[in-house]
């Protein structure tokens, strides 16, 4: 280094963890949310682009998807925000016991969501290879499914990790907080997709 | 004419090819002429900007009397003259670019207005690697169907409807106009208003597969009278063959592989998936500009199309030299 150092500030008393935008990993999570969000926005743009070629959407003779499974899915997804918010608050309050109690709910809800998602794929009333309309709604549903899958695995791993002595680490509570944030992104991004798969194809027939 | 000469000089006469058959500097069509004019305007403004920047750079490098550097501990200060200089530079750039944008819009509007009342309509359908051409007429018996060539009467706005049967191609006849893509599943169009008679060349300008390089077409712009003569000739069916060689060729063509792909009007050969050959011998080139139209080249093509244009869709049938001679003779009668 140039010259001798002149010591101006002692940083040893600074914390080794922080929540929200003070956390380095928060920025990483935001980065990935923006990436995936961009991918969704562009898929939605492709959806409207393909729709603009059609006089009717869903193009006859294909029927729009059956909304029962999708609506159930949406309801469960929205309800999952209740334990999710509780987990987030518990993490910020360093309440490890509460986190350990609540995380299994998210994991269980995730399993239910997968089952419902399976029914959704079955009720689309069109196959991905039938035409571009079929391809794009399958693409939207598949993209969101990978979204759920990765966050479900994240949550399951986090649950196991929190049950070890590492659960008592403040930084692991920051991880928990950020995982809850990501779960919100998962259902927020679902809402426009739900609308585009189940309701827009009914509005233009 | 003077303007074109000036441009040739501007662009270094040895390198430019004014007077060529496939050049954007030809300006022999309405849109082509607009291009030459607009390109000149842009060249002048852009050259001026380039000069300002490079002269500015040289002046900056040669300046000796600066004192606002690290050596004088004044490396954060700036001369007061730089603020107005920046303002002037910005104003210059914005004005110049705005002027160019306006020039572009005006030319665009001129091009759009140019062929609003087209009196000639044709459809060009692109295939890998040849052009199908069909002239429309309200009377169905007066449609002309040809391939790899276009004839246009001087001064008559022509509407060219563009389609594709396979991948994306692009029709570019630079002497007359800019290009338009031919996109499967869509219909695009191009307006041509030829202003000067002559023979020109067009070429595919969107990479379309192995023989994209050899997908050209011959464009003939002629007087209205000559065009009518050509059109009338195109409406005639092929003449029956005379001479033993030609009859043998005709016999082969109409009973063997050729007729499954090609059509010759007035004969049983009515394949639709390859170029129409009814007036094949009247064209200037073979296989979309691959070879000039001569008897020797026709024979060469028939003997082994794959050697002349590897990968194209006409298979090497394995004709014997006698068959090649006969077919060449017959095709030579299709004027």
């Amino acid at each position, binding site marked *: 280094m140039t010259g001798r150092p002149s010591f101006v500030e002692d940083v040893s008393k600074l914390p080794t963890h922080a929540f929200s935008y003070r956390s380095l990993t928060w920025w990483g999570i935001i980065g990935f949310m923006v990436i995936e969000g961009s991918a969704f926005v562009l898929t939605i743009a492709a959806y409207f682009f393909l729709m603009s070629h059609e006089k009717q959407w869903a193009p006859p003779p294909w029927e729009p998807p059956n909304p029962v499974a999708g609506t159930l899915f949406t309801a469960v997804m929205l309800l999952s925000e209740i334990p999710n918010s509780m987990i987030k608050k518990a993490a910020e309050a360093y309440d490890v016991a509460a986190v350990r109690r609540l995380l299994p709910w998210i994991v269980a809800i995730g399993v239910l969501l997968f089952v419902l998602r399976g029914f959704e794929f079955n009720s689309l009333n069109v196959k991905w290879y039938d035409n571009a309309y079929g391809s794009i709604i399958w693409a939207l549903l598949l993209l969101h499914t990978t979204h759920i899958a990765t966050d479900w*695995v994240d949550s399951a791993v986090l649950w196991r990790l929190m049950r070890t002595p590492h659960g008592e680490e403040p930084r692991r509570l920051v991880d928990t907080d950020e995982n809850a944030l990501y779960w919100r992104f998962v259902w927020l991004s679902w809402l426009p997709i739900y609308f585009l798969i189940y309701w827009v194809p009914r509005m233009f027939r | 004419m003077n303007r074109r000469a000036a441009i040739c000089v501007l662009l270094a006469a040895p390198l430019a090819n004014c007077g060529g058959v496939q050049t954007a500097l030809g300006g022999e069509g309405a849109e082509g002429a607009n291009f030459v004019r607009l390109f000149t305007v842009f060249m002048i403004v852009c050259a001026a900007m380039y000069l300002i920047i490079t002269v500015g750079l040289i002046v900056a490098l040669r300046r000796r009397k600066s004192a606002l550097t690290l050596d004088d501990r004044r490396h954060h200060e700036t001369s007061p003259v730089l603020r107005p200089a920046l303002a002037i530079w910005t104003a210059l750039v914005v004005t110049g670019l705005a002027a160019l944008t306006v020039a572009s819009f005006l030319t665009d509007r001129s091009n759009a207005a140019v062929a609003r009342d087209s009196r000639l309509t044709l459809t060009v359908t692109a295939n890998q690697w040849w052009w199908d051409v069909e002239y429309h007429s309200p009377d169905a018996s007066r449609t002309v169907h040809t391939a790899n060539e276009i004839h246009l009467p001087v001064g008559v706005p022509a509407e060219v409807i563009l389609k594709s049967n396979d991948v994306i191609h692009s029709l570019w006849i630079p002497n007359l106009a800019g290009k338009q893509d031919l996109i499967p599943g869509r219909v695009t169009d191009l307006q041509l208003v030829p202003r000067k008679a002559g023979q020109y060349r067009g070429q595919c300008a969107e990479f379309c597969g192995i023989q994209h390089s050899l997908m050209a077409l011959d464009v003939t712009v002629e007087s209205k009278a000559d065009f009518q003569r050509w059109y009338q000739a195109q409406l005639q069916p092929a003449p029956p063959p005379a001479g033993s060689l030609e009859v043998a060729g005709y016999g082969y063509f109409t009973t063997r592989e050729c007729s499954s792909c090609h059509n010759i009007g007035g004969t049983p050969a009515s394949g639709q998936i390859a170029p129409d050959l009814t007036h094949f011998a009247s064209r200037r080139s073979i296989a979309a500009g691959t070879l000039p139209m001569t008897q020797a080249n026709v024979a060469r093509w028939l003997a082994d199309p794959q050697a002349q244009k590897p990968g194209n869709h006409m298979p090497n049938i394995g004709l014997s030299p006698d068959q090649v001679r006969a077919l060449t003779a017959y095709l030579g009668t299709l004027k």
Partner: protein
Amino acid sequence: MTAAEKAKAPPIDVPRDGPELTGAELQRRLARTWDSPPGLIGWLSSVDHKDVGRRYIVTALLFLALAGALAIVMRLQLARPGNDMVGAARYNEIFTMHGTTMMFLFAVPVMQGMQIYLTPLMVGTRSTAFPRLNAFSYWTYLAGGCLLWVAFILNIGPDVGWFAYPPLSGPQYGIGKRADIWAQMVTFTEIAALAAAVSLVATILKQRAPGMTLARMPLFVWATLVTSLMVIFSMPSVALASGMLLSDRLVGTQFYNPVERGDALLWQHLFWFFGHPEVYIIFLPATGFISEIVATFARRSVVHYPIVVLSLVATGILAFGLWVHHMFATGLPRVGYSFYTAASIAVSVPTGLQIFCWIATLWEGRPRLEVPLLYVIGFIFTFVIGGLTGVMIAAVPLDLQLHDTYFIVAHFHYVLIGGAVFPLLGAITYWFPKLTGRMMSEGLGKVGFWMIFLGFQLAFFPMHIAGLNGMPRRVYTYPAGMGLELPNMLSSIGSLVVALAVLLFVVNMVKSVLVGKKADPNPWNAPTLEWATACPPPRYNFAHIPMIDSRTPLWDQGKRMPVVHGLRVEDRELLLTSVLAAEPDVREPSAEPSLWPFIATLAVTVMFVCSIFSPWAVLFGAVPVTIALIAWFWPKSPVPDPEPTIS
């Protein structure tokens, strides 16, 4: 202790840097903490950003050489009309590989490599954020590059052009697996670029040295921030497009098939929405190089710093609104086209402002005409031509003649070589002492500069003429008698000169690494923080984290460098500061070396390569990937350390 108690507990008494622990003893202990394990394992598990950055740069230069060799083959074929040196099918593979390699495997990776190497050093921290993600990004890039080139060598390489338009690249006309390999290579490189971009954004926003407000950041760091954000917003588009292409080809979706209500233009919109920002992703880091070189060699800070920053940001944003200018010939409504003409012309205004600022800085300063500055001058003379031809083709009436001709080939080589490669060569010369500890030869450098500058003009200027004279792009031959012989011959000769010049540059690099003059920490007397540490820097970058109060810290500091102290010495630790004012905020552990990024890339490679052949590979291949990722993040010790570490 519960987490709540740990959160409030005072810091543990462990060795920390400061007045009691400084100088040679501190350096020895930091070196031990930040070192990589020895041998092959160490090489594969290193997460040092300097290793990752260097690997990116060397690999990218290798791909530059390979793609350049292909270019020479192309130019030899085109030297004469009707040449039969290379056949049609092979030529189409060659130009596809040339463009694909240059754009995906050289241009973006080399810029990201420079950014990964330089950013932590320039902002005064010890590592990038997410060091293992960075390492993973390099391995993934390498895997994608290998996929493409192994395929080419096995004669199943792509042949549909670097932007692979369907239906030509679709299932009906794109026979075999060539286009799938292309599309999957895109997936690899786009994941790599996104990972690096996220890491860089987090580093710049959270790890700057105390006192380095956004307004005091080096201009190269600003360029890196803008570029990385552009990567994040644009790369998903090409990932989506290539994913849809793979799915059309593999499982029969109909996205691009007009017969089943799809649209070939959907590809063009998605691709160019990425493709246009892509070229600015390549260009903006080069402007960062220019700013740093101009400041050092003019011996003063860049004039009108805020204007340069605003220009970078404006260019980055505007770049997203131009993509339709690649589609002017597709028959979309003319009214829409007018907007894109205006936007495409407007985007040159911020760049014009940057050019003013650089020239004004040279005017205001006392320029030293050494090799890095020569490349800056070469950049201005060359890039501006490309920028001006860009203004021309932004105009629809001009573009309809010039689109898809050799005029466009000339234009983009002028902006890419003039605008990115020349600054890159100057930057490599400039930062060579920092990366290797030795100076490059000034004499060889000057010869090389003039060769490449003049050779480039000879190679590419005649292409403008060829395009005007009717030569379309992507042709393996052209007819005689159209005025194309002379421009093509000149281009071919010029390309050989350029190839020799590049060879000379490489020789200079190799020779200098072996026997070049050893470098002081700051041989150019430059102002930015990377020059405050040794050449090459120790693994921990800085023994103490500096505190700064100006844009040119090394010029303003005086004899002593103010530093903060109190970071751990026996574990990897760095400092997080606040986003705007850069006040010290959190002590953050930094990741230790790990094999998991490499293993994760192996798993991802198996998944992606197999999915070229079967869609089930996505499902089954996801299992090893998931296992690798879990192992990556799972803490390696059964109980947490007293102060946090990342292993």
